[in-house]
């Protein structure tokens, strides 16, 4: 019987070949998407793992922390041997520098002995006056004038950092060698981050309990596992539905043939075997093609910065379990789906009869959905678990329950809506579509379930992100914010930064001011001084909620303030004004219209006061910003925060939020085409199943437009109904999540979200429309004649 099944599949003529090709192509597409999703998750983890060494010295030591023990400083290769306790300590300082909007991870190191640990990617530690740079930074150093970048880094380059230490191919990383005394002095000067370490961290940022395990780039959020779990579910679910739909292509034709086989004496069991063989052949061919497609697309896909940084192509790899799960699981699932579908029809020797009106979905299908919502609501009342792992265990089941619940409740909701539609229908297209949906709402919903899940996930992601941005501050932007460079020299009286034996907050040298003013493109330099008067600025003045009270003030010369309007303005006639201490500055353009209170201090006295911060306003050219930054870094090396533009600072603080958003966009971008493909396949399958009644309707004079409306309504009605429900539930779930996890109230998203949703719906409707020409062809007179 297996041989007969194979013969029917492979030598069944043109129709069988077309069917086989269609199913295999659809399965291939689905499988390649599954593989890309799995490989993407693996890639994010691999990329994260390569951030680990950058967390050295900042990862809290404890039982959960893994480290790579030291190896002799002079030995080749990365640190893999020896005991941490036996190693010579390594002086270590990691800082984030910037160039043209990109982050440079700068690592200053100094060996204290021959057994100091060596970071990955370099053969040995650089000596004093030497450095290693990543390939991307090396290229940048070669192509950029030294006054804009190279002068910041003491010494000369002795090599390139290998891929093992690069989170992404374009990572900008530099490892600079010093003498131990140079770096030990930094610790004595209380430079944050300067520390002696005995091993290089191997703790992936995703396992960090802190929120800032590594500097620079990448996904360093503590909740990355939670996000990845949701992303994986959001991607895999629609793909599996798509594969299931694809295997049902031309099911009606196949079933007719099975009836003929039954007529000549085949038992139902034998028909099942033939069906399984046919489906397996298509699924296996599809799986093989899917793997081919995945490997073909792997390299271009790696270049897409899904996480904000591109992957190495080798990052997009598959584990043995991934390969086996897909290679075995998909054909098995396809056979199971086909077998299930066969059980829904009665194939007798005299023909195929649908089991009359499939059993209507019951209202209990709402239970998983309600249970998921109740689970999230419980944590609103009871409070979130304290650990990341506990939070993952708390929220992932809730979201998964809602997603599964949406799929289970979808047919019931579709049926209720279809029955209402049928009751009110006065046009034949509406009546036929509504009746078909009400008869078999599962089939109607199946086609749009992928999109419904995509909409749910998108709504949750956007709802959470919008709320985070609202409460934690939106990234400030604008040209002015990106053009103004800030060097923070101190944090209020008594917190002056000590740089190489002197207070950084000492009055700024005239030489530096002259140098800054001499840079082409620098338009103004303003100094923010400590306030000996003890003035306070009310939060309301800064545009914050009055509940914040008031914040300490710093002082600024009105002559200088007038040249940097971004920071606000002085009252008329004032010589100096009190502005919020730079640590409290909102760094937002809204300050531009603020008039700060007059400070009763003479200009001469003001100039003698310690400087808290230097603001350098430029014309926005990269050359001006980077030359000014280089000059400031050379004047004030090892500041806790190297000079940054306000735009860079905002980008850094909102980095995690942006990474979440990036992942949400990935979900949208991947889910929508999958849902679109499912719709297209489902509509095409529905059309071929109803060739005869539709073509006979056309013969009797029913205009093609009526049939088009039937198809459009059958697809659009469940799409629109469930879209409303899924976005509503998305907002509800997001609201419960932000309330339980973060203690915030949900904020409505901006117009962009609605545009994405409308674009997604429009794309799906476009895909439905693209199948309509098929209707014209398959319902022509020839079909009625030949069927």
């Amino acid at each position, binding site marked *: 019987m297996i041989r007969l099944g194979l013969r029917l599949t492979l030598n069944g003529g043109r129709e069988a070949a077309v069917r086989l090709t269609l199913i295999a192509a659809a399965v291939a597409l689905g499988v390649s998407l599954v593989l890309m999703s799995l490989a993407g998750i693996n890639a994010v983890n691999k990329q994260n793992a390569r951030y680990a060494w950058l967390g050295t010295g900042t990862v809290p030591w404890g039982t959960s922390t893994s480290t790579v023990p030291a190896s002799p400083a002079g030995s080749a290769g990365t640190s893999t041997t020896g005991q941490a306790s036996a190693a010579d300590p390594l002086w270590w300082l990691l800082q984030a520098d910037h160039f043209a909007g990109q982050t440079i991870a700068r690592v200053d190191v100094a060996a204290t002995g021959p057994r100091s640990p060596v970071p990955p990617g370099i053969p040995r530690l650089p000596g004093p006056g030497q450095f290693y740079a990543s390939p991307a930074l090396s290229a940048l150093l070669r192509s950029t004038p030294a006054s804009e970048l190279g002068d910041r880094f003491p010494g000369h380059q002795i090599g390139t950092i290998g891929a093992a230490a690069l989170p992404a191919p374009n990572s900008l990383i530099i490892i600079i060698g010093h003498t131990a005394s140079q770096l030990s002095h930094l610790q004595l000067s209380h430079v944050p981050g300067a520390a002696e370490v005995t091993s290089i961290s191997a703790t992936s940022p995703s396992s960090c309990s802190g929120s800032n395990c590594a500097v620079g780039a990448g996904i360093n959020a503590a909740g990355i596992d939670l996000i990845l779990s949701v992303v994986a579910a959001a991607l895999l679910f629609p793909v599996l539905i798509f594969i299931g739909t694809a295997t049902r292509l031309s099911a009606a034709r196949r079933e007719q043939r099975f009836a003929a086989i039954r007529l000549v004496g085949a038992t139902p069991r034998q028909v099942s075997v033939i069906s399984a063989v046919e489906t397996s052949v298509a699924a296996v061919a599809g799986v093989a093609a899917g793997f081919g497609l995945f490997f073909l697309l792997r390299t271009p896909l790696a270049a897409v910065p899904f996480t904000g940084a591109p992957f190495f192509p080798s990052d997009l790899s598959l584990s043995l379990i991934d390969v086996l799960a897909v290679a075995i699981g998909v054909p098995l699932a396809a056979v199971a789906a086909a077998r299930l579908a066969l059980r829904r029809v009665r194939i007798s020797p005299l023909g195929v*009869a*649908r089991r*009359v*009106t499939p059993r209507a979905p019951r209202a209990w299908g709402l239970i998983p959905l309600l249970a998921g919502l109740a689970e999230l609501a419980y944590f609103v009342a009871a409070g979130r678990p304290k650990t990341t792992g506990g939070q993952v265990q708390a929220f992932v089941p809730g979201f998964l329950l809602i997603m599964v619940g949406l799929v289970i409740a979808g047919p019931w909701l579709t049926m209720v809506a279809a029955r209402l539609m049928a009751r009110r*229908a*006065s*046009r*034949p297209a509406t*009546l*036929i579509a509504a*009746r*078909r949906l009400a*008869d078999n709402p599962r089939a109607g919903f199946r086609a749009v379930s992928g999109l419904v899940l995509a909409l749910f996930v998108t709504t949750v992601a956007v709802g959470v992100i919008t709320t985070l941005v609202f409460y934690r501050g939106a990234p400030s932007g604008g040209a002015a914010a990106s053009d103004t460079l800030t060097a923070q020299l101190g944090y209020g009286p008594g917190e002056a930064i000590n740089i190489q034996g002197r207070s950084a907050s000492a009055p700024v040298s005239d030489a530096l001011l002259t140098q800054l003013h001499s840079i082409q493109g620098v338009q103004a330099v303003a100094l923010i001084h400590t306030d000996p008067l003890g003035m306070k600025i009310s939060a309301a003045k800064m545009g914050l909620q009055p509940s914040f009270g008031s914040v300490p003030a710093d002082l600024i010369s009105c002559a200088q303030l007038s040249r940097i309007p971004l920071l606000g303005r002085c009252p008329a006639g004032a010589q100096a004004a009190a502005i919020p201490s730079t640590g409290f500055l909102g760094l937002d353009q809204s300050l531009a219209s603020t008039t700060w209170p007059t400070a009763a201090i003479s200009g001469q006295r003001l100039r003698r006061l310690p400087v808290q911060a230097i603001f350098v306003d430029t014309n926005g050219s990269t050359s001006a910003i980077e030359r000014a930054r280089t000059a400031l870094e050379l004047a004030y090396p090892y500041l806790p925060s190297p000079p940054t533009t306000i735009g860079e600072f905002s980008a850094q603080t909102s980095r995690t939020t942006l990474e979440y958003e990036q992942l949400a966009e990935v979900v949208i971008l991947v889910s929508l085409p999958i849902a679109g493909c499912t719709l297209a396949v489902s509509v095409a399958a529905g059309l071929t199943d*109803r060739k*005869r*009644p539709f073509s*006979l*309707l*056309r*013969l*009797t*004079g*029913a*205009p*093609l437009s*009526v049939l088009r409306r039937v198809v459009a309504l059958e697809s659009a009605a469940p799409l629109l109904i469930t879209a409303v429900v899924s976005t509503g539930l998305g907002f509800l779930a997001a609201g419960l999540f932000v309330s339980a996890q973060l203690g915030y109230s949900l904020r409505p998203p901006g117009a962009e979200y609605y545009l994405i949703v409308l674009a997604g719906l429009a794309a799906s409707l476009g895909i439905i429309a693209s199948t309509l020409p098929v209707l014209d062809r398959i319902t022509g*007179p020839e079909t*009625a*004649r030949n*069927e």
Partner: protein
Amino acid sequence: MTEQTGVVSAASRSPVSERADCLIEASDIVRSFGQTRALRGASVSVTAGEILAVMGPSGSGKSTLLHCLAGILAPDSGEIWFDGRRIDAMGEAERSALRRDHFGFVFQFGQLVPELTAEENIALPLLLAGTRRAAALARARPWFERLGLDGLEQRRSGELSGGQAQRVALARGLVAGPRVLFADEPTGSLDSLAGELVMNLLTAAVREQGTTVVLVTHEPRVAAYADREVIVRDGKVNSLAAGRVGS
């Protein structure tokens, strides 16, 4: 009601085209499908109110002739006239409108929309013509009693027997009061008893409404219900006959 009483005549007649009550006239129709010539210069006329049986062996071109007469297919050459309008020169949209407004159809099987109830299936041509739903269903209901389908109004096609489904299809073909009913092997999928019932009901209904019928069949027993028979052989209408079953 009609009653089968056997063939009463088979006399030749003068060409119907010369008669004032000629409703459909086709002359010298040629229609090919690829290399296959299904019709090779077929000519036939149908008088208003008559039941014309088109007979012939399988593959002779009788269904193609019916499809051409009904405006489903456009002939490659030749002319087809319906009530003074030339069908073969019409576009697809115009022919669709003609079929919807003036013709009814009954086919061998599979013509009911499976999602609709029997009542809605019968009302479908009226709905397509723009009649309001309540009015369309009201016009559909009397057909259940007339065709012996009482109590089956809410059944779907899958819940009807072959004979019942064919009677629903017949009601659907006649509900809008078409001038011509085209029936292609209407009893082809039925047993003889059910076939006879359908033909009896068909002839009774069309005589009551004055509907013209073009009936394609290869069964002499079915053809016997017609007023006149033509035989299609090798793509040509090459003989004429007349017959009558019942009154």
